[in-house]
Each structure stands twice: as C-alpha cells, then as structure tokens.
C-alpha cells in the first residue's frame, strides 16, 4: 500500500493564487491612510492563518493515506459535539452565538462542521450496501446533514446552515434522482409566489387554474385523483411557507428575503448593504480604481467589507478585469477539484473531494451573487478571500486534506463510477 505522494500542482497554484488575492484584498479593505504594512493588521493576521494552515498541511501530508477514511466518523462526531458546546458556552457576535473564545482567539465551529459533515457523507455514501432506494439509508443521510444544519440554525446563523444544501450536488452526482431537484425548483417557485402574493391569493389562484384544467379534462376520470393530490400538496406547502415565514423567521431574515426578491424597496436597512455593494463594484469600471484607491471601500460605506463583502473591494479597485480573474480562478479551482474527485479510485475520496468542490461552489455563487444583487444577503464568506481565521483555517485544512487524498491515489484500489 506504499505510494508516492504527488500533490496536484495545478490545484496548489490556484489555491495559492486565490489566497494571495485574498490577503491583498483584506489589506486594501482594512487599509487606513498612513497605516501599517501588509504584514500587520488584519491582512497580517490573515497571512498568519495561512501560515498555520501550511504547518497543519505538512502534518496532513505526513499522515498515513488511510488515516482520514479510518477516523472519518470520529471527525464528524467531534465537530458535532463542538457545535453543541458552542450553543452552551459560545459568545454572541452580531446576534449569532457561533463563537468559542479560547484566550484571545475566537473559533467558529460551524466553519469546521462542513469538513466533518463531508467525512460523514463520504463514509455513508461509500459504504458497500448504501442505496438511494433504502429508506433507512435515506434517513441516515438526511440525519447527517440535518444535524449540523439544525445546530447552526439554533446558533442563529442561517447562512452557514444553508451551505449544507451544497451536499445535494454531491448526492445528485452520486445517483440521487434529479426529480428531487425538480421538486426543489418547483418548491422555490411556490415559495417565491407565496411571498409575493400571500398564500391565500396563491392558493386561490392555483384552485382556479385547477378548475379550468378540470373543465377541459373532466371526461378523463383517471386524472382527477392524482391532480387533486398534487393540488393539496401545493396548497399545503404554500400555507406552511407562509406560516414558517411569519412565525419562525426573524424580522431581519424576513426582510432580507423580501429585499432579495424585490418585494420591498429598501436602500437604507437590509437593502443598504446590497445597494452600496453594487455601487462599489459597479463604479470600478473595466479596469478598476487601482489598488488601495477604492473610494467606496475607503469610505467604509459597505459594512463587513473585509469579510462577507470582500468582493466589493476586488470589484471596485480591480474593476471587471479582476472580478473576472477572481471568478475565473474560482471556477478553475472548482473544476479542478471535481476533476481530482472524479479521478479518485476510491469512492470515499471521490465523494469527499466532490463535497469540497460543491461547498466552495456554493460559497462562491452565494457570496458573489449577494454582492452583485443576484442572491439574497446570506452571510457566508468567500473562501480563502474573506477575512476570518476560522473560515481560512477550515477551508485550508479541507483543501489540503483533499489534496492529500488525491496525492496518495496511486496506492488505492481501482474503483470505477458506481
């Protein structure tokens, strides 16, 4: 089982390039006139986290190739425990109880929970007798995903919880019927229409449509029962969306969704961030205002501009050239990761690496989409670029683990697409 460790150079280059872009952006986003060098302040801290990650990476590469697969479930359990602990002793930051303070360092366990969940998902899906048709397996897989989601929602960090939806892409890749995705899309449409027109009008409209449909097809008795059933589900879903929206979501969450759906115009409250962010990026023009010269960034018009809204700095100071470069780097990195996953001989590794790719994909779509007004304001970081120790560390460890798995693939038994 001895193998040569050959790290994938292309992924490494993309990884380092994105990280470098990130440090520079954090430096610019937090830059004050006459302030410190890139090695100090927040960019210095960010660099330090990359340094720590590199050290951890060395350890990861020294580990046995099968270490992760063997201890997979332990990682999951340990990190879930951490999520429980944070609920008990965590400290509140920005209304979310998602931080554990150890001395001067704050750790955000939800960032690491994705890593743990990827292990659990990989273990479950790669077990020999797993089948999408077995109810027990479906419940297991649902539980593995829903447990961290639930715990993180309890922390008050809905955004981070939604990231776990990215595992559906892996499930699809691994054979889950696309009907789930179609149903999901229909559900989203019902969701939006319900919020636009309220469930009462929506349901009324659907019933009228149904009656028209029935008038044309009443001779066909066979269609009646199934279509009635679908009608019932649709109406019920709409009602429950309304109920959940009104009673479960908090005011600011409701507002965020409404602003994103253009249901309310709001350039001061929830819409303020998106508006300022669009202005910053849009004003960058084709080639940007120049490094450290973004007037909007420098004016602190955008809240959280070194974390969730870091893309504004890139868009404003680097213009379309650099925003395209950033998106391009990410897309290349994601594609390369999927490629690494697909070339893995072991199903476990394949699923793990594809989980990573899907999670990064989700983060990039949502984070960048939010800054340019294509997605709701969901507070999740742009991987490797947003400022934040937990996020940087978690993604680096995740990526390095995946690269280690790929590097040691030669010794694995051949396993084709299942």
């Amino acid at each position, binding site marked *: 089982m001895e193998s040569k460790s050959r790290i994938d150079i292309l992924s490494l280059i993309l990884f380092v390039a994105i990280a470098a872009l990130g440090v520079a952006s954090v430096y610019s986003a937090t830059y004050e*006139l006459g302030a410190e060098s890139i090695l100090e302040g927040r960019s210095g801290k960010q660099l330090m986290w990359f340094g720590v990650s590199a050290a951890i990476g060395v350890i990861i590469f020294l580990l046995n190739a099968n270490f992760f697969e063997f201890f997979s479930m332990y990682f999951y359990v340990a990190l879930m425990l951490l999520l429980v602990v944070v609920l008990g002793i965590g400290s509140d930051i920005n209304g979310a109880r998602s931080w554990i303070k150890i001395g001067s360092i704050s750790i955000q366990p939800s960032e690491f929970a994705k890593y743990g969940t990827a292990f659990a998902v990989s273990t479950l899906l790669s077990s020999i007798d797993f089948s999408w048709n077995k109810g027990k397996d479906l419940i297991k897989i649902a539980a593995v995903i829903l447990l961290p989601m639930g715990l993180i929602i309890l922390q008050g960090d809905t955004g981070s919880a939604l990231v776990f939806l990215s595992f559906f892409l892996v499930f699809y890749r691994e*054979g889950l019927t696309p009907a789930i995705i179609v149903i999901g899309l229909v559900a989203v449409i019902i969701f939006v229409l319900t919020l636009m027109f309220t469930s009462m009008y929506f349901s009324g409209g659907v019933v009228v449509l149904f009656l028209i449909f029935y008038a044309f097809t009443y001779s066909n008795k066979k269609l009646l029962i199934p279509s009635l059933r679908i009608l019932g589900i649709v109406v019920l879903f709409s009602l429950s969306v309304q109920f959940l929206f009104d009673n479960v979501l908090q005011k600011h969450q409701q507002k965020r969704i409404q602003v994103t759906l253009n249901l309310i115009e709001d350039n001061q409250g929830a819409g303020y961030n998106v508006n300022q962010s669009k202005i910053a990026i849009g004003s960058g023009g084709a080639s940007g205002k120049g490094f450290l010269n973004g007037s*909007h960034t*420098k*004016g602190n*018009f955008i809240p959280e501009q070194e974390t969730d809204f870091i893309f504004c700095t890139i868009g404003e100071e680097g213009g379309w050239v650099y*925003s395209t470069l950033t998106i391009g780097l990410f897309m290349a990195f994601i594609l390369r990761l999927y490629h690494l996953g697909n070339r893995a001989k072991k199903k476990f590794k394949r699923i793990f690496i594809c989980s990573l790719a899907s999670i990064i994909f989700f983060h990039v779509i949502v984070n960048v989409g939010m800054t340019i007004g294509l997605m709701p304001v969901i507070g999740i970081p742009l991987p490797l670029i947003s400022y934040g120790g937990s996020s940087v560390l978690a993604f680096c460890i995740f990526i390095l683990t995946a690269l280690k798995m790929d590097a040691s693939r030669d010794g694995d038994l051949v396993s084709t697409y299942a």
Partner: protein
Amino acid sequence: MNKLRSKYIYFAVVLIGFIYILRLFQIQVLDDKYVNIAERISLRKQTVYPQRGLIFDRNKKLIVYNDPVYDLMVSVPIRLKGIDTAAFCQLLQIEREEFDTRLAKAKRASYRGKSVFQKNITNLIYARVQERLFEFNGFFFEIRQDRNYKYNSAAHLLGYLGEVNRNELKAQSEVYYEQGDFNGKKGVERFYENELRGVKGEEYFYVDKFGVARGSYKEGKLDREAIDGNNLLLSIDIALQQYGEKLLDNKMGSVVAIEPQTGEILALISSPFYNPEKFNIQNRGKFYNMAINDPTKPIFNRAVSAPYPPGSTFKPVMALLGIEDGAISKNTHFGCQGYYRLGRRIIKCHGHTFSTSLQRSIASSCNTYYCNTFKNMMQLEKYKNTEAAYNSWQTYLRSFGIGNKLGIDISGEYRGWLKDAAFYDKMHGAGRWNYARIISLSFGQGELGLTPLQIANIAASIANKGYYYTPHVVRQLENMESIPEKYLVKNYTMISPDNFDPVIEGMQEVTISGTAAHIAIPGINIAGKTGTVQNPHGKNHSAYMAFAPVENPKIAIAVVVEEAGYGSAWAAPIAHLMIERYLMGDSIGPSAREYLEKKMIDSDLIPYKYKSSRNKSLYGK
C-alpha cells in the same frame, strides 16, 4: 450515468461562472450609473472661493475690500456618528429641534454630497466651532467672500452682492455658479462681475460614510487653485463723492460729475443713499425690507435710472440745434414781453430786457426765445411737414445721447423719454399736429425725460464742443490691457464745433450776470444753466448743469434736487460747491462760502409727506 451527471456539474460551474462574469460586465462596464452614484456619495467637491477683486478710487484709495463669511456645511448622506449634539447646539446657539429640522432640510437640499447647515456664521461663532470641529464628524466650513467698505459712501455706484438666483443659474452658458454662490447684483459689482469674481478653485476629497474627508481624490489631479479676481480702479474721487453726499444729505436728488476729456465719472450720487455696509451679504436681510418700504426709495439709483424733464437746462441744447439747423443764427434776437403768445395760450417768461440775444436768452433763461426758435425749426422749408422737422430735431438730440442708454458701466441705466413723430401722430392723428402742440419741449418740459447722467453728459459734450466719451466709472482694470473699447472712442454730436461758442458764452454769463451769478466762485470760470422743472406732483425740481473751468473744462456736472424749488436756489449752489471742491481740492481755504455750504448741508428738503416713514438706521454707521 454518473459520468454524465459529472459533466452536467462541470457545465453548471462553467455556466454560472459565465453568467456572473457577464453580470459583472453589465454593472461594471456597460452601466455607468454606479460610477455616478459612487461619485455622488463618496466624493466631495469642496469649493475654494477666490478673493474678489478690491475696488479703489481714482487716487488709489481702497474703497471696497473682502470680509470672509463662513457657511457651516454638512456632508450628505448624513450619518452622524458619535456627535455630542447637545454641545454642538450650544456652540451654535440653537435648539435641539432646530438642529433636527435643519438636518432634515439639508438632506433634501443636498448638492454634490454636501448641504448648507448654517449660513453666514459670525466670526465669533466660527472661531468657537472651528476649534472643536474635529469632534463633529461630517461638518465642515466653506469660506466665501462678503464685502466691506472703507467709506460710508457710493452705495448705488458700487452696488452689492447677493446669492445667485435660480434664473441666473439656469441662464449661464458655461456652468460657473453653484447654488449659494454670490455674484454682483447692482452697480459695478454687477457690471464687472466677471472681472471681479476671479475663478473658483476646487478640491476633491473622498469622504467616508460619516462625511469625514479621507484624502484627496486622484492625488489632487482634479484639484484647481482659486484665482483671485482683478482689482478695479474706479474713476470716482471718493472725497468728492463723499462731499457731494454731504451736500445732498436729507434731499431727494442726484449729482453726476464727469471729466469731459475722458468721460470718466468723478462722482455719482443718488440721494437718499444708504450705508453700503448695510447691504452686504451679512446685513442685507435685516435692512432690505426697510429700504424697500421707504417712500423716498433709497435703493433707487436716481443718477442713472430716474428720468426728469430737463427744464431750462435744456435751453443750451435747443440753441445749438437752432443754429445748426438754420432756424436761428448766432446773432438772432427775439423780443420778449414777459410771455409768449400761442393763440389764446400764454407761456410765461421772467422779467428781463425786451430784446434778447442768444447769449442773454441763456443767461436770463428766456422762454420766448426758445419758443420762437422751436417754431422756426419746425417750420423750416427744407422739411416737408412738421413730422419731418420733428424727427430731424429728435435725431439731433439722440446724437447727444438723449433718449438712448449711454452705456455706463453701472447696472440699471434708463434711456429716458424721447418720442418720435409717430408718437404724436398716434396721439393727435397724422398731419393734425404742429409746433404749437409740442412747444413746451423747447424749454425742456413735455414728453422729454433725461437722467442726471444724460444731463451731465450734455454738459460734457458742450465742454468738449461737440463730442463726448461714453461716461464710465472704470479707470483701470488690473490684469487687463485696457478698459472696455467703447469707453475710448469719441461720440460726435451733430453740431459743428464753431456753433458752441455763443452757447458757451451764454452759459458763462449765467454765472456772471445771469440766474447763477449770486453764487459765482471767484477764480473759476463756470459755464452753467439753471433749470426749474415743473413737477405736477409737488414743488418744482431744482436742476443745474455746468462745466468748469470754461477755458479748459475739467469737470462737467448735473445736479437735480427733487421738489426743492428754483434751480438757482439748490442745484446750482451744490454744483458750484462741488466744482470748487474738485478744482481747488484741499487748497480751498476756510471758505468764504462757508455759509452757503452749511446751508446746503443742513437743509432738509425731504418732502413732509415722506418724513415720517423714513428709517434713519439705513444710513448711519
């Protein structure tokens, strides 16, 4: 199957990446809306106001200088952070409610990321607030130049500044003014606005969301330094101006004095006047209504805007026209029995010897002489009818600048009244009027209105024997090669130079043996002509026109004192005192004419009906 799905995922990644890049292309490259918005909110243009040009008199005495006023500005969008509002209100001496109202108003009125919070802050409050300004994020000062004055004098001529109004903002072909800027509203301030104002400078700053400047924009590449305005040297003699104002104090009227060889205005007085300081930016608000409601119209510049029938001061012109046109000769005598008969109508004259020469007709102001002259002129054979004769007459007058704006460099000039034949055709019917209908024009009454400036210009034209320079108050403009071209060319009257001699002789006799002989000034030969102007609304206006010294005229002057009586009683003495003051300067001894001077200064000739409504605070220091 999974291989295919894998491909779908690759495709999804590429597709979404592509969509995002296109979306970014749309908002970053195609749509420039965001650039504009970003500049509006994160870029602040701070205006640097130049020093407005200073104004001096002909002897380089400083008259008008600048006085900074401070506007407290607030950055918009307003997001006040950590401001001790109570302390701020206390510094500005305003209530908290006032603070909130102003802030809301500032938000609505914002322009280029800023808005006025309080205008025209006094030096004292400025110093207090400036000291602690760093505590009040988002507030900053803009400094503009208001005017102040060395002399309580020449208010009408100097004019005043005011805020640019909406029409002016709209009308500018090249955008220079912004809302809240000052520009000259009246007088030379208005006429020489472009020379005096200089060029505003600009500094661009990034501001953060609290409105705090964070550094210069593009390393100051767009910044422009302010260029100070050009200083203006006026032709007026501020000492003479002040002296004239003293003489005209408590009277309604006007004095205009011109240097005939150049057309330079030596003094231009309209009374009642006001202290120019009361009309600067900082004070005008308090005094404007007071001035508007004063029935003596203290802000009305009578010298260039008020038309008066010239009365007998018009007779020298009439004589010149008569000779030139051939209606009379230099030697023509007319008999006068103390009246001129026109059918049943009688036009009275004054007591004088029966037979009148041209010279004596001026000296004794004989109405009959000019009725005859006018009649002859209207009936000259070379004209086919009265209309033609009349039109010829008024064309002669226009060559003196009567009936037209002369083109002085002060705002508000009025052209006066001079009708053409068509006017009388309309009034009486074409061909149905003759000299008899308009005979009173011959002695300066009727449908004739001249501003004091136009009367003074006639005096200057006679002094020059046939030409005048367009009267002007500019003597020199700093950084300009010359004053405007039009002030350097001679305007010729239609009268030949030779024909002036008998008229000037007559005018000289006025001050030797005529209507102004009692106030002759020993040592100075003055040519003058008194006028007593009939006024249907009250007492006659007292008028006088003169130039001196006759042999080498240095000053031509016109004086009108409203509702004062005889020309010889008020206007003539005032004119002579001014001539004496100007020609003798400080060498004037403890004047033998002290009594006359004192009488002029001390007399209050404001009609009784107006006295109770006058407000003295407009005039004093």
